């Protein structure tokens, strides 16, 4: 039998979320590799490789973020993947907590592209042999890939947060839209609490016209749970509906990917939400300072553990139900 020589984990940091990279690196006790991307003055990206990754197990951490630079970071990721491939890495895993273009996953209009599929194809063309992501907007995106995709869940971390911070009798879990009902009902089942749903009518993307509450939330602490918060229009409106129409005591939002684009922070500050909790899958920069009700859950232990398990060939499914401490 042919035996493979031992190889090690190489962590490569993209420029999108240096903090998360450092946290994962600290958690694993592995230093970030001397591979880095930078831009020339003509805005073209280049990757300098400062140490050998030959026959190593490479993990590239890059999240989809930045209102002006999401395409820049996507290109950067493709170029780093390609650089590692040229450098003869044995396996290249892209760790993409927030998958870019995840919401453009279907042909919802005539002649609209399925960009999520394009991104999947581009990653594979660049040389990705494995993808780790977190709370994909639509889990069907896994089917866009011909390589294995490990879709991790923030759910265990969120459950722990809820258990540590709330009494079960007081809370009710609310889904801000019908699409998230499944995600929310699973959390409600595990906590053994009731859940409610808000049905929203959309006329244009990012714009919500009317909301209807389904379920009883009277005098409860409502936990609005969603996979991402972008402009936060939905969350703020939902909070109003819950408080005014439903008679809720308090509304708290728990989300996985805090994108908070355009004037989301101002909106949150003026909203009726008493708290908003998101994971650190996206760089929040100064948003924590600008928004006093914003809190974070550290997701790096889950990502780090997934990387470790993947490298040693252990099962990743443990992480679907358990959050590493």
């Amino acid at each position, binding site marked *: 039998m042919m035996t493979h020589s031992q190889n090690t984990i190489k962590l490569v940091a993209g420029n999108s979320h240096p903090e998360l990279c450092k946290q994962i690196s600290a958690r694993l006790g592995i230093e970030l590799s001397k591979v880095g991307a930078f831009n020339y*003055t003509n805005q*073209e990206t*280049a990757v300098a490789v400062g140490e050998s990754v030959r026959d190593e197990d490479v993990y590239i951490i890059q999240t989809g973020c930045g209102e002006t630079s999401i*395409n820049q970071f996507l290109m950067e990721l493709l*170029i780093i993947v390609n650089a590692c491939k040229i450098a003869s890495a044995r396996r290249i895993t892209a760790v993409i907590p927030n998958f870019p273009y995840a919401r453009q996953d279907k042909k919802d209009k005539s002649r609209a592209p399925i960009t999520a599929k394009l991104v999947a194809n*581009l990653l594979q063309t660049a040389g990705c042999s494995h993808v780790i992501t977190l709370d994909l907007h639509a889990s069907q995106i896994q089917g866009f890939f011909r390589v294995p995709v490990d879709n991790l869940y923030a759910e265990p971390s969120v459950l722990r947060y809820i258990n540590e911070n709330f009494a079960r009798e007081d809370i009710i879990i609310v889904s801000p839209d019908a699409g998230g009902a499944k995600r929310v009902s699973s959390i409600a089942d595990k906590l053994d609490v009731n859940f409610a749903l808000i049905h929203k009518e959309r006329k244009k993307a990012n714009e919500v016209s009317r909301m209807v509450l389904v379920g009883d939330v009277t005098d409860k602490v409502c936990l609005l749970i969603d996979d991402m918060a*972008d402009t936060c229009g939905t969350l703020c409106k939902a909070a109003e509906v819950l408080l005014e129409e439903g008679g809720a005591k308090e509304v708290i939002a728990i989300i996985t990917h805090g994108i908070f*684009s355009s004037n989301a922070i101002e909106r949150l500050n003026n909203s009726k939400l008493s708290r908003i909790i998101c994971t650190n899958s996206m760089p929040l920069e100064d948003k924590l300072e600008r928004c006093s009700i914003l809190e974070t859950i550290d997701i790096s232990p889950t990502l780090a553990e997934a990387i470790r398990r993947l490298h040693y060939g252990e099962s990743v499914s443990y992480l679907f139900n358990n959050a590493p401490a």
Partner: protein
Amino acid sequence: MRDLVVLGGSSHPSLTKAICRNLTIEQGVVKSVKFSNGETSIEVVDSVREKDVFIVQSGCGDVNDTFIELLIMIAACKTASAKRVTAVLPLFPYSRQADVPHAANKTGAPSISHQKDSYTFDSAPSTPRPLSRAASQANSNSVNNPIANGSGTINNNNLKQPTPTRKLPFVAKSIVTNSAGTLGTVDAYGKTESGYKQWIAQNGTLIANLLTTAGADRCITMDLHDPQFQGFFNIPVDNLYSRPLLKHYIIDFIPNYQQCVIVSPDSGGAKRATSIADNLGCSFALIHKERRAKVAKNPPSTSMSSSNSVLSLNSSEVLISGQQTPASSSGQMVATTMLVGDVKDRVCVLVDDLVDTSYTITRAAKLLKDQGAKYVYALVTHSVLSGDAINRLQKSSIDKIITTNSVPQADHVRHLGTDRLEVLDVSRILAESIRRIHNGESVSMLFDHGW
């Protein structure tokens, strides 16, 4: 022309418009907007079912953003059942790859450039000059030398003094750098502390593959920096030339063009320049650029670096602090430029395919003027002019720059002025090639004749 649709990306709308005007067709309508989270949203408004689609997108401005936009547009047309999708990239993104694959911070285009008030355009150490020239210069500096003074006045009359026309200061865009600080310092030979030679990945094949993956069936581009680039593709690539256009300019607008010298600013462009020189019957000169590592007088002390790593646990901090130590001054590259050929009292025409930071071409112009050139033209296909290139060019000894509109030039013209920067139109060549490809005619006649 039935079944022909020309779409335009956001990088160069005026060129798309000009191409459509030349083809006498209406430009296809594409809605390209950004979602609030920065993601690009494309919607092709007109039907492209079973159509022959051409998408014009130049590799300029925010290159990565426009390139992803192009990929999404190609994918959108493909999902909308287009018969064939052709990417028209007048300037091919990532066509110029780092020429020295190591020592990222020391060679190639700088990742950060600051605007300065004055530039020397000198290479360090200064270029060695022929003895006679040096002697005559020394003479002209002396007080009474009628011959030298005489030639000096003639030169002054003939020389067109560059006049500053700039009104607004040109501000370079901010750039993304290695934010995690994982890139260590390298010595002059591109080696990191561990002795591994740092290298820069070449993106050519990746870009070609990405275009094919998105669904492009064909590519049209212009004056590819590397002719080998065509081989990276598994789809047909039509590489057009701006040479006929530039040749016409020389013949029509340069007085006594037979007497001028065609100069290549670096050895890589020698072939391009000689082909023009041969074609016109002009003489030819070459500037040779050499990059060498400056040899340190004292080797960096090993005790210093080892003590650092003992003190600090974080290696990236060591590397950053190591940058400031005097020992790392040995990690410098020196560039020397040398002129091969005679340009004294001649009109020089610098020919290059791409001017980006303008380091090469301004340095070349300085060298030519130092060697006694009368007037320096620069004929450039693609003028990206990134960083502080505009300021460099403004203060340089290039008397006139002639370029094409393969990338938007309106900004550059505004800063440099129309008498300093002249723009030739490539939309006709591109339109004619689109027409020929659509009709299945030969494109090769465009290689020799301007349009």
